[in-house]
């Protein structure tokens, strides 16, 4: 962008040579303006001060600089619009906002449900006029706030665990974060493929699957924390407890969510496929929890 006035001055032949003559002893005036205008050197101030005053007038009165500024600001707003449009094409922001409409009571109750789901009676997601209720008003609705926060907490906790064992370095932190993220992405892709192949008619969108896959981070955090506090035995006990709780939670939630309103319409083989899919997703959780945390607790 700083080169634009130079090219404009190339096309303005009559005034170009005058510019060149005026600024011949210096580099182009824009560079000098922005660095000299805000400098606070007491010794050299008077001399660049005069130059700055001269160059600032030169800058503001210069029609080419005005054109350059207008061009630059229009490019910036155009770029911003393009980014917004591309983002809206890939991610529907309204649907994403639904998953983050949580409050403290919901988060507390949901965390308690993830750790102890055995006494919960009603697992159906409630609807109001064909739209599912946001997580603020329905405990069974999935959300993306808990998985996101749990992921970040897991990465920090991994750093702490490695630091306690004196195996920490900043690259390991990034590696841990990207590994966990890649496993979640692969799991979501596998679930999407399974849903497509088994032709499960449900209203489980990609974000729902992301939410349900992200709940395992809570189990991972609890296992690592117990492992750090109580040693290896505590880690295995917490691993067993959180795995079984998470498996029960997933099977109950996905059975009511995956079957949906067409639960009586599916034939027997398809319902069997759906059941296998749910059980497979649930059985995968303890494996991945173990895989991602055992190297942190030795």
């Amino acid at each position, binding site marked *: 962008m700083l080169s634009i006035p130079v090219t404009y001055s190339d096309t303005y032949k009559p005034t170009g040579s005058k510019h060149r003559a005026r600024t011949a002893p210096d580099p182009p005036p824009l560079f000098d303006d922005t660095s000299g205008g805000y400098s606070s050197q007491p010794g050299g101030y008077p001399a660049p001060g005069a130059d700055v005053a001269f160059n600032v007038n030169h800058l503001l009165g210069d029609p080419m600089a005005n054109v350059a500024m207008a061009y630059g600001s229009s490019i910036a707003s155009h770029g911003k619009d393009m980014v917004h449009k591309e983002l809206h094409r890939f991610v529907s922001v309204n649907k994403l906002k639904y998953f983050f409409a949580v409050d403290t009571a919901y988060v507390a109750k949901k965390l308690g449900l993830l750790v102890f789901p055995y006494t919960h009676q009603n697992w159906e997601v409630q609807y109001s006029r064909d739209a599912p209720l946001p997580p603020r008003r329905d405990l069974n609705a999935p959300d993306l706030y808990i998985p996101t926060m749990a992921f970040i907490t897991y990465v920090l906790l991994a750093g702490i665990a490695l630091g306690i064992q004196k195996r920490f370095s900043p690259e390991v932190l990034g*590696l841990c974060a*990207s*590994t966990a*993220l*890649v*496993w979640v*992405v*692969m799991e979501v892709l596998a679930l999407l493929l399974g849903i*497509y*192949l*088994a*032709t499960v008619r449900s209203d489980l969108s990609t974000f729902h699957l992301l939410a349900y896959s992200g709940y395992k981070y809570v189990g991972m955090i609890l296992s690592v924390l117990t492992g750090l506090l109580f040693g290896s035995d505590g880690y295995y006990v917490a691993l067993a407890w959180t795995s079984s709780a998470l498996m029960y939670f997933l099977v109950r939630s996905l059975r009511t969510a995956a079957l949906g309103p067409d639960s009586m319409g599916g*034939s027997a*083989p*398809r319902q069997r*496929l759906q059941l296998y899919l749910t059980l497979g997703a649930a059985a995968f959780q303890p494996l991945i929890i173990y*895989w991602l945390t055992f190297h942190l607790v030795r």
Partner: protein
Amino acid sequence: MAFTLYSLLQAALLCVNAIAVLHEERFLKNIGWGTDQGIGGFGEEPGIKSQLTNLIRSVRTVMRGKKKNEWNTLKF
């Protein structure tokens, strides 16, 4: 197994490439996964095999892109 996002991208690219190079006549017809075999009716049950064949066909069509016409007009 330490994964990076780049390795995920690599794996996805290799998988898509593997699906794209499955040859229609030499290979898929022999194992009965060709696109003109077993389209099935408009019944309720697509079944896993027809879903898979549809998926393979869709991936190959998307991978062909818009350049097929240009290849036909290249004359050396």
